[in-house]
C-alpha cells in the first residue's frame, strides 16, 4: 500500500465525506454564531471603554486584557467544566459559542476602540453642535467612518475564531475536527483527517488571502 492509498484512500474518503459534512455544518454554525455575538459584544465593550464612567472603563479594560491573556481552550474548559458547579450548565455547542464570543469580543473591542478613536474629535463636535444626540452621532457619523478601519483587523479576528472552532471538539462537540478524528478511529485510517484538513484549507485559505487584501485596500484614512 503506498502513501497515497493510506492518506487519501478514495473509498474511505467517500464513506467519511457525509460524516465530515455534518461536522462542517456544526463548525460553520458555531463560527457564524461566535462572529455575530462576538462582534456585537466587542462593539459594546469598545463603547463602554471609550465613553462610560471610569469604573466601567476599567472593568472593560480588565476584561479585554484577561481574555487576551487566557488561552481560548482554557476559557472554553472553564465554561464547560467549571461553570456547572455554579449551577450553570451549557451544552457543548452553547459552551463553545459563549467561549468563542467572549474571546472574540475582547479582540474586537480593541480593534473597534482604535477605529472609533481614529475618527477626528471634530466629527463628534460637529454632530453635537447640530443637536444630534450621542446614539445618533455614533450611528450616523462616527461608526460609518470607523468601519473602514475596523473591517480588515476584524476580518483577521474572524479568521482566528473560525480556526478556534476546532477547539469545540475537545468538549465533545461534533464539529468537523471531532467527526474527522472519530472517523479516523472508526476506519483506522488517516484519510478522514486529511480530508478534514483540506476542507479547513478550502474555507480558510481564501479568507486569509482576503484579509491580506483588505489590509492593503481598506486600511487607509477615509478619503475620496
Amino acid at each position, binding site marked *: 500500500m503506498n502513501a497515497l492509498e493510506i492518506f487519501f484512500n478514495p473509498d474511505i474518503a467517500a464513506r467519511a465525506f457525509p460524516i465530515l459534512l455534518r461536522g462542517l455544518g456544526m463548525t460553520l454554525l458555531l463560527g457564524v454564531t461566535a462572529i455575530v455575538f462576538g462582534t456585537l459584544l466587542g462593539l459594546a465593550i469598545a463603547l463602554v471603554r471609550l465613553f462610560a464612567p471610569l469604573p466601567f472603563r476599567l472593568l472593560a479594560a480588565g476584561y479585554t486584557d484577561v481574555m487576551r491573556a487566557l488561552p481560548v481552550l482554557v476559557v472554553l474548559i472553564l465554561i464547560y*467544566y467549571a461553570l*456547572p*458547579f455554579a*449551577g450553570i450548565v451549557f451544552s457543548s455547542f452553547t459552551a463553545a459559542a459563549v467561549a468563542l464570543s467572549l474571546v472574540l469580543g475582547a479582540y474586537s473591542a480593541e480593534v473597534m476602540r482604535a477605529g472609533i478613536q481614529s475618527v477626528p474629535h471634530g466629527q463628534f463636535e460637529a454632530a453635537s453642535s447640530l443637536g444630534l444626540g450621542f446614539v445618533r452621532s455614533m450611528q450616523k457619523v462616527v461608526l460609518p467612518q470607523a468601519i473602514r478601519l475596523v473591517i480588515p483587523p476584524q476580518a483577521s479576528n474572524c479568521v482566528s475564531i473560525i480556526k478556534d472552532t476546532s477547539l469545540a471538539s475537545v*468538549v465533545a462537540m461534533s464539529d468537523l475536527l471531532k467527526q474527522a478524528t472519530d472517523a479516523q*478511529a472508526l476506519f483506522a485510517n488517516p484519510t478522514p483527517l486529511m480530508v478534514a484538513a483540506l476542507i479547513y484549507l478550502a474555507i480558510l485559505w481564501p479568507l486569509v488571502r482576503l484579509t491580506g487584501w483588505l489590509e492593503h485596500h481598506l486600511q487607509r484614512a477615509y478619503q475620496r
Partner: protein
Amino acid sequence: ADPLKVAAYPANPPWENKTESGAFEGFEVDIVNEIAKRMGTTADIEGMDFKALFVASAAGRVDMVISSLTITDERLQSQSFTQPYFEGALGVGVKEDSGITSLEGLKGKVIGTVATSFPEKYLAEHKDQIGFAENKSYDTTANMLTDLQNGRIDAVVNDVVGLRYAFGQMKGLKVGAEIVTGEKFAIMMPKGSDKLQKANDIISEMKKDGTLPKMYEKWMGVAPAPGSFAVTPMPVPTSAN
C-alpha cells in the same frame, strides 16, 4: 415526570456505545432504561468525555452516570453510588507479539490509562510493585488504543470486558493478562440524590425478578454466576468494601 438525565461515556462497548444513528446501546443502557421505565419516565442519555462525567454528576447537571464505574472511597466523598451489579476486573491490553503475559511483564514499560479512571488510580497505588516506567493518561479510550497500535505505549490497563470487546474489532491487539481487583461496577449519582434510594430499590427488584441477569447474559454472552453481584440485591453502598 421529567425524563431521567443520564450521562454516559459514548465509546465503551459493551457497557454503553453510541450507534451510527446516534442512539445509545449496551448493558448499562438497558439497565438505566429499565430503571427509568419503572420510575414512570424515560432516560435521556447524553454522551460526555470520561472526565466530564464526574463534573456533571458533582455539579448536579445529570441524575445518573453510567460508564462501568468502580465504587471507590474517594469517589464516595463527592458522589453517591447505587448497589453494584457487576464484579469488574482489569485487563492488560497489549500488541499480539509483545510477549507480555502478566503484570510483572509491565516492568519498565509505558502504560496508558483513561484519565481519572479506576485503573489509573490502581496503577498509581501499585507503581512500586509493578515498576512500570510511565503512565500516560488519555481523555478517550479510542485515543489510548490508537496509541497502543501506534506503539507510543506498550500496554493499556482498562476494564477487561471493554478491552475484549474492543479487540474483537481491532487487529493485532489482545488481552495479555487479567488483574482481579474485586472492583464493583455501579451507577454513579450526585451525592445525596433524592432518587438514589428509589433507584437502588428498583435494581434490587430487577435482580430478583430476573430482568438484570437476562440483560447480563445478552451483553456478556454468559449467564451470571450464582451469588454474583448481578443476582444479589444489596443496600446503597457507604464504602468501597
